[in-house]
């Protein structure tokens, strides 16, 4: 680490207070403020508006001609996950993504460079009921525990359609009806499990002796769903399977928090709205499998107009880097307003994950998770300059460029050392 970079790092990473001034603040929650400033203190947004000034000792960033957008929230990602699918069972609710997070995944850093600060890390779609999901903040380079979004409700992945029914294993399920059946069966067992604990607790309270039920980690997660303590994120494509899951949930008595992908959501939008589920979809992917053949880029806009809380997600370490552009596509295909489009990747996914009291918009008291853009965030010509998580800089384009030079020099030095040690005959051409 060179002295200059070190100085910049220590100055920028953890100041007492930071003032971003003369910026266009795209709050998402209450419009866009021109020539305004935003004060970060203690990792939170302390103030914002036209007359906010820097307290003594604050770092001041001049952002004239620049835009500040809340950190982008991705409601569907597998980034930082060392492993995605536990596919050996139809119900894998005993496993958790929290156990396999890799905080050094370079995709975290690349997502930061796209202005993303929070993501919902999901289990794969191999099973009707998959593993437990977890929400992370992009605190790249910290340990796995520091990645976790403290206070965010835990989730669980469900999956319908082609993914859970395919596969060579000669086991249940092999049809959409079978997938629905597996979920029903699991919840019936979970209810019995819940009842057994209830009986036990009642017996204990009455002073009777009783044996506690055997703890079942698979059913425990489903009991939490029944109690509203764990959010269901259900991977789905076709209208029929979406409707069947909604009816099953209504009957059993649990809520689907978000329908994921939900590419035919526009066909059953009223039913989704009536259940109260959110929808987290792609901007314009289609045609990659049969159940994606009726996907339309108007899906997000149409569902929004029918009263559903909608977000645009990435499900991809590449797509996550330009979710701002994916949001812009809903203006083109379906006519959403700019504010509505931006909410699809900020405030709406925060609401879906029930963390909108902390992130998703520029409001006083929220976490200082935000990015400075060099132009309007919905334009293809704009890029991120600096990204903050909890008021700390985790990506900065200028710092990045300096580090590149150092990395190149370090590589060169290592190569020279290596070449010096090797007999020339065994030299391999540079890759």
């Amino acid at each position, binding site marked *: 680490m060179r002295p200059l970079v070190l100085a910049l790092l220590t100055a920028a990473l953890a100041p007492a207070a930071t003032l971003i001034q003369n910026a266009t603040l795209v709050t998402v929650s209450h419009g866009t403020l021109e020539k305004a400033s935003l004060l970060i203190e203690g990792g939170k947004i302390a103030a914002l508006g036209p007359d906010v000034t820097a307290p003594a000792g604050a770092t001041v960033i001049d952002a004239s001609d620049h835009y500040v957008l809340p950190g982008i929230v991705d409601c569907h990602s597998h980034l930082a996950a060392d492993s995605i699918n536990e596919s050996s069972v139809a119900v894998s609710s005993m496993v958790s993504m929290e156990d396999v997070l890799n905080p050094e995944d370079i995709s975290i850093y690349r997502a930061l*460079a796209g202005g993303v600060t929070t993501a919902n890390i999901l289990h794969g779609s191999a099973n009707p009921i998959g593993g437990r999901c977890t929400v992370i903040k992009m605190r790249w380079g910290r340990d796995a525990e520091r990645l976790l979004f403290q206070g965010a409700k835990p989730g669980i992945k469900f999956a319908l359609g082609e993914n859970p029914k395919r596969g060579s294993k000669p086991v249940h399920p092999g049809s959409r009806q079978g997938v629905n059946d597996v979920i029903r069966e699991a919840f019936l067992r979970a209810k019995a499990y819940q009842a057994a604990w209830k009986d036990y607790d009642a017996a204990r309270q009455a002073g009777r002796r009783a044996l506690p039920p055997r703890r079942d980690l698979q059913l425990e997660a489903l009991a939490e769903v029944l109690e509203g303590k764990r959010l269901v994120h259900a991977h789905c494509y076709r209208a029929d399977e979406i409707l069947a899951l909604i009816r099953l949930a209504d009957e059993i008595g649990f809520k689907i928090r978000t329908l994921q992908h939900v590419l035919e959501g526009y066909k059953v939008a009223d039913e989704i709205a009536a259940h109260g589920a959110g929808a987290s979809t792609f901007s314009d992917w289609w045609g990659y499998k049969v159940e994606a053949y009726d996907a339309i880029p*108007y899906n997000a806009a149409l569902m929004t107009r029918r009263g559903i809380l909608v977000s645009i997600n990435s499900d991809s370490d590449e797509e996550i880097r330009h979710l701002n552009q994916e949001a812009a596509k809903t203006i083109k295909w379906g006519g959403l307003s700019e504010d509505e489009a931006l909410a699809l990747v900020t405030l709406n996914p925060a609401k879906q994950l029930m963390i909108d009291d902390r992130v998703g918009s520029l409001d006083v008291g929220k976490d200082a998770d935000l990015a400075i853009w060099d132009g309007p965030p919905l334009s293809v010509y704009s890029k991120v300059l600096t990204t903050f998580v909890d008021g700390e800089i985790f990506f900065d384009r200028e710092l990045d460029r300096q580090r590149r030079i150092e990395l190149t020099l370090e590589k060169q030095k290592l190569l020279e050392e290596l070449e010096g040690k090797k007999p020339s005959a065994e030299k391999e051409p540079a890759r």
Partner: protein
Amino acid sequence: MMRPIALLVMGTLAASAQTILIRNATVHTLAGEAPLEGASVLIDNGKITGVGRGLRAPKGAEIIEAKGKHLYPGMFDAFSVLGLAEIGAVDVTRDVSEKGDFNPQLEAVIGVNPESEHLAVARANGITHAVTAMTGGVMAGQAGVIHLDGWTWEEMAIERGGPLFVEWPAIRVYSLSPGQSADSKRPTTFKAAKEKYDKEVAEIVAWLDGARQYAKAKQAGLKPGEVDRKLEALLPYLAGERPLLVHADREREIRDAVAFTEEQGLKMILLGGEDAAKAKDLLAEKSIPVILGPTQSLPPREDDAYDAVYAQPGELAAAGVKFAFATFTASDSRTLPYEAAAAIPFGLPKDEALKAITRYPAEILGLGDRLGTIEEGKIANLILTDGDPLEITTQIEGLFIQGKAVSTDNKQRRLYEKYRARP
């Protein structure tokens, strides 16, 4: 969002006018001059027959009033599987590769399905023509160049036997997981990987040498039973009449492929080129054009700069390398303008980005006299927009292919309108 102009353009479908005057538009000719304000373009019998201010409509011509609109050349996806692939996960709907490694006799274009939904979806975002190609093996077949409209693949074909797709071998050293054992397909040492590579290159040489022998034998006269269609197919490429589309990504392979094609006297277009910027001086010196893989891709190596792929087109342009953008897909062909736009914040001049999805691909493919700009004599593949076609929020309001107004309607819009109207 159906705007009046779009309705007008759709209205012309029924009339199928041979002569159309698009007037009062801002015409971005991309032929070198600044955009022409308040200008008109006259189309007759599929071709552009006039560009400029004060053009009069001939008698009986369809007039399209385009005040406040922008007219651009239609966008050219320089590498796709449009018309050849319908549903990614369903093999039987895909005609993109054939069994065997050497199939230079195959013509991609005869597998183009004019009813493919992907064509109409791509059109709706301003793509009017594309390279459509088979891949896989070593010599996968002859890529075609197609209009994204036509009753048959024959009507759609701009060029039937286009460039030959060649998968350049790669030196790849595999690291095996526990339990896996090394085999000839997955070498685990550099030495073994290099041997495999040399063998694969030698096989390409053998095919080319075989074709040269065949050419000699042909000159001496062949009996009907002695025709070899694979070797026969290689002759126009050996003669330098048609280029090879050489797919290579790493610097070492790019440099090898350039040296190889030069030595063999072949015309080369580099395809993919993830590391093209590392060989930019060589590519510029040898005038090797590049059809780049999607800009919205992850950097190939973990320690690459986060913006390595975004920045590469700007570096190539600065070095004087001619290149075009491409999507390599069918379903994402409509995102072509954004593959170009993604390079602009990282150093590519805006007008270069636009040319790299219109004019440059036409020039690279030897079609520069027929497509790519708005000039007299060129095929009338045009788009009418309400603004900058690289910005996502811009709407395509009119589309012309071979001088005919083609609807921007498609299955997706129809589903939207249907379900939007659900009571």
